[in-house]
């Protein structure tokens, strides 16, 4: 391309000078180089030709520069005199040529030509203009710098190598980024949904995908560090009482109904707490099972905290800092089309999404300008909140009532009652979770909020509902735990009696070993409240999932089918009136997701299978809901951006995380574990496993250090220091926010000032132009209007031709070669001379 460039340049130069006179040519200095072979003859034959002759194209082999055992002479002459002859003892590269030009040509021209209108022409291809000799210095530096790139000179090989490595590295980076983006699952699905339904619906799916990722990690932890070691290295099924189905239950242990209820063989497996053995180290790896169980339980919570807080911080960074909202519409207009799109379908999607986003922004803009009738709206809002409170109170009482009833059933024995009575609590909770949000939705239409704020209110209310339900459930669970512990005391006592009966001798309280072999299935068992808790959570999650899917199928799919096919034979238009197609309920689905996650966190300690179950559930949900949204839902009528909602979801998730780990922590810390099941059986408290590990596995000094560290005298000051640090950080962040606001205000006022200044300058320039034009007009002709007035102004034509260029300091942006410039007069600036 460089050659092409010079080719053009030469042609242009030649065209400009083809009509020169003799006088002009007398002022030209001519130069060339030639080389003389001293010690050998090479294959090249040099020929001379007369002025009128030309080199026959078929006979010449090209031109060649000097080198290799020869002498290079460079000389120049002009009309008046001979110029210097220079012996060039190095290879004539671009650099040396320019050096010669700068060192010798310029002084020669200065001595020969008194004025600056002389010209130098050389035998090689660089035309030299007397005016731009100073450019030679610049060119020299440039060529030296890029000598490698030009393919000549010493630095060529190294430079080429560097360039190649750089290119390979950039290509590798680009490929890696592409690969990483391709690895993100469901990206195309979500983009499709986004382009059809807007960003708020898509934000739910993005949230779902994020949860899926987090649950995968949790699953990895529990599966890899808890379930697999026990299954592979622990004692097998049937070898111990806790690992065997009791004799009384063995008849129905394989029934589907029992398995679905997570009893039978499902209960006595790695899925639940009760299966795990309390042996300190198992297998040839000496894997510390109880320690691992405890640490994984703590680790899942710690990891979840870390991930949620980190995502919140990242979202806050992205939204709060550096987000210039002053060019929303312009950016949408000028930068939203993706020029890389080559697929017509994708283009259609993109069109749809651009239209949606235009409409969203217009709606937002209008909302901010809307007037409201304050008092009526306030009254309606208060009324709506009152109704919602009534609903919440009602649902709370209902759950309390149902829980009391189930406790009554439990006391009387569950075998007497049917399926509904046994699962009453679960079903009532699920049904409440399904119907109350719809009720809240209807009530919120009274309030007439901006859709984003209405969404947040809705979320808040459903949150309160679920929270109430969950805590009532936990209270019920606590009652059951206490019941089971009382049962355990009874069983412990019966155990000693039973063992005595085996010996047929006196009861010896101190000895617990038995030498008579007994089948593990026959040993009397404690009620194992931990497994019971795990089972309850698993059942709740399963029933919740089933309810969600059935609601989806009936509420969305069957409804859509009904509306679509019965529309032909129905009295009114089903599609526009009632019931019409359903809209995707973002708030309800998000909250369902969050609360399910809360239950996972609560129950994961007692049922290690819960994260695995959740991963499966989320996977199926993703596909099912993506299909349902595209197939049965219509976009919302009022579209809006869910920009601020991301952190809202995260904040709720954080609150749920905190609230759901509280009961688990309480049970770990205050309730002694069951005596005959689980990895902590035999200890006084579950956290004693840490103490045990410190004593046995770590050196003595470590235990001492730890005991000092857990001394209350040390812990309390530490907590105090943390509180002070939090307070300090909070106040610093407040001052930073204030400083930020100040800077933003300053920028805005500066912008206003600039606008005013520009406007004044524009008016002034226009006035000057008018004056100039008037002066010209008055000078050239007197325009006498028919009624005698001198017309002093001709209104300026519209368009760009007369507008002065906006003063932006330096000149306008460069033009690429070969393209015509914009029409219109330009102010003569001194730097605007040399284009081409």
């Amino acid at each position, binding site marked *: 391309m460089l050659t092409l460039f010079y080719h053009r340049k030469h042609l242009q130069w030649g065209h400009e000078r083809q009509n020169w006179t003799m006088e002009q040519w007398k002022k030209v200095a001519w130069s060339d180089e030639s080389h003389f072979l001293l010690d050998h003859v090479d294959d090249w034959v040099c020929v001379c030709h007369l002025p009128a002759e030309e080199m026959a194209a078929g006979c010449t082999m090209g031109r060649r520069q000097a080198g290799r055992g020869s002498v290079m002479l460079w000389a120049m002459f002009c009309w008046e005199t001979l110029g210097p002859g220079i012996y060039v003892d190095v290879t004539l590269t671009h650099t040396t040529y320019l050096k010669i030009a700068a060192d010798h040509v310029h002084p020669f021209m200065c001595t020969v030509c008194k004025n600056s209108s002389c010209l130098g022409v050389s035998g090689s291809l660089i035309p030299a203009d007397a005016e731009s000799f100073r450019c030679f210095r610049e060119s020299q530096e*440039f060529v030296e710098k890029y000598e490698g790139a030009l393919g000549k000179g010493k630095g060529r090989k190294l430079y080429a190598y560097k360039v190649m490595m750089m290119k390979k590295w950039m290509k590798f980076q680009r490929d890696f980024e592409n690969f990483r983006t391709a690895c993100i699952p469901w990206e195309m699905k979500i983009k499709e949904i986004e382009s059809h339904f807007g960003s708020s619906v898509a934000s739910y799916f993005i949230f779902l995908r994020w949860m899926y990722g987090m649950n995968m990690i949790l699953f990895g932890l529990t599966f890899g560090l808890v379930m697999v070691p026990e299954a592979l290295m622990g004692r097998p099924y049937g070898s111990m009482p806790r690992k065997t189905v009791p004799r009384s239950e063995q008849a129905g242990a394989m029934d589907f109904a029992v398995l679905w209820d997570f009893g039978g063989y499902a209960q006595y497996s790695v899925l639940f707490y009760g299966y795990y053995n309390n042996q300190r180290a198992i297998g040839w790896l000496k894997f510390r099972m109880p320690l691992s169980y405890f640490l994984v339980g703590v680790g899942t919570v710690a990891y979840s905290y870390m991930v949620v807080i980190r995502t919140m911080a990242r979202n806050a960074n992205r939204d709060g800092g550096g987000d210039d909202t002053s060019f929303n519409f312009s950016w949408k207009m000028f930068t939203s089309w993706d020029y890389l799109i080559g697929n017509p379908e994708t283009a259609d999607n993109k069109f749809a999404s651009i239209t949606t986003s235009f409409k969203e922004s217009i709606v937002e803009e209008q909302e901010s300008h809307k007037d409201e009738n304050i008092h009526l709206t306030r009254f309606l809002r208060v009324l709506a909140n009152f109704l919602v409170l009534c609903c919440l109170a009602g649902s709370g009482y209902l759950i309390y009532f149902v829980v009391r009833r189930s406790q009554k059933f439990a006391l009387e024995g569950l075998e007497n009652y049917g399926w509904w009575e046994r699962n009453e609590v679960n079903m009532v909770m699920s049904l409440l979770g399904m119907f109350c949000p719809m009720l809240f939705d209807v009530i919120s239409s009274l309030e007439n909020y901006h859709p984003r704020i209405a969404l947040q209110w809705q979320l808040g209310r459903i949150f309160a509902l679920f929270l109430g339900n969950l805590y009532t459930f936990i209270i019920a669970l606590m009652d059951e735990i206490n019941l089971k512990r009382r049962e355990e005391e009874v069983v412990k006592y019966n155990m000693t009696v039973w063992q005595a009966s085996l010996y047929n001798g006196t009861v010896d309280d101190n000895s617990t070993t038995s030498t008579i072999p007994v089948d593990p299935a026959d040993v009397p068992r404690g009620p194992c409240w931990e497994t019971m808790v795990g089972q309850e959570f698993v059942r709740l999650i399963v029933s919740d999932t089933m309810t969600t899917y059935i609601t989806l199928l009936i509420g969305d799919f069957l409804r859509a089918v009904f509306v679509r096919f019965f529309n032909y034979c129905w009295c009114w238009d089903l599609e526009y009136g009632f019931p019409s197609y359903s809209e995707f309920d973002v708030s309800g689905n998000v909250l369902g997701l969050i609360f399910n996650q809360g239950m996972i966190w609560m129950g994961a300690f007692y049922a290690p299978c819960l994260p695995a179950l959740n991963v499966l559930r989320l996977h199926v949900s993703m596909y099912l809901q993506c299909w349902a949204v595209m197939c049965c839902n219509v976009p919302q009528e009022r579209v809006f951006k869910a920009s601020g909602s991301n952190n809202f979801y995260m904040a709720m998730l954080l609150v749920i995380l905190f609230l759901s780990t509280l009961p688990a922590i309480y049970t770990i810390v205050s309730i002694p574990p069951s005596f005959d099941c689980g990895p902590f059986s035999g200890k006084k408290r579950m956290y004693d496993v840490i103490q045990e590990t410190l004593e046995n596995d770590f050196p003595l000094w470590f235990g001492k250090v730890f005991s000092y560290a857990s001394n209350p005298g040390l812990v309390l000051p530490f907590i105090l220091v943390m509180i002070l640090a939090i307070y300090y950080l909070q106040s610093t962040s407040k001052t930073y926010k204030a400083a930020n606001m100040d800077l933003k205000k300053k920028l805005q006022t500066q912008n206003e000032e600039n606008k005013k200044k520009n406007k004044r300058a524009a008016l002034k320039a226009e006035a000057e132009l008018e004056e100039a034009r008037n002066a010209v007009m008055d000078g050239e002709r007197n325009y006498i209007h028919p009624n005698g007035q001198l017309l002093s102004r001709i209104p300026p034509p519209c368009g760009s031709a007369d507008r002065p260029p906006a003063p932006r300091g330096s000149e306008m*942006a460069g033009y*690429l070669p070969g393209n015509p410039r914009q029409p219109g007069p330009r102010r003569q600036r001194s730097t605007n001379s040399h284009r081409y």
Partner: protein
Amino acid sequence: KSFYDCELTFLTKQEILLAHKRFTELVAKEDRNDPSPRVPMSKILTLPELKSNPFRKRICHVFSTSESKDGSLTFEDFLDLLSAFSDSATLEIKSHYAFRIFDFDDDGTLDRGDLEKLVNCLTGETDDTRLTPEEMKQLINNILEESDIDKDGTVNLSEFQHVISRSPDFVSSFKIVL
């Protein structure tokens, strides 16, 4: 200013060779022996990279150097096009060309008519995706309010560049790669 204040092209050698290959595929058979063939706009628009682009006709017009303004491109025009849209082109070059592409009536500024045509291009060809006239008016008013600094009712090149320079995804979306 010296010769080297702007690069000739932002393309690498590989890219230029590939462009030449794709270009010669588009050249009509009878023009194959022509030293600098000119491909009509209809053929250029069959390229998959340009086929779905709503601004394809404007792009051809902007980069075309034909006197008859028919949007036909020589190989050098084609290279100029690819160079301006390439990854390594600077923000100034891209914003300059973006301005010329959006300037539908070629008068050097973006006035209401240009902005309207721009919005219609972006919202697709079919009628049900177009904006209503009120929405259009509202949108254009908002845009002029944001970008028109000297309040003359049009957006000129410097105002356009001022807006674009703040945008985080202009450079990455204004890209065409063969």
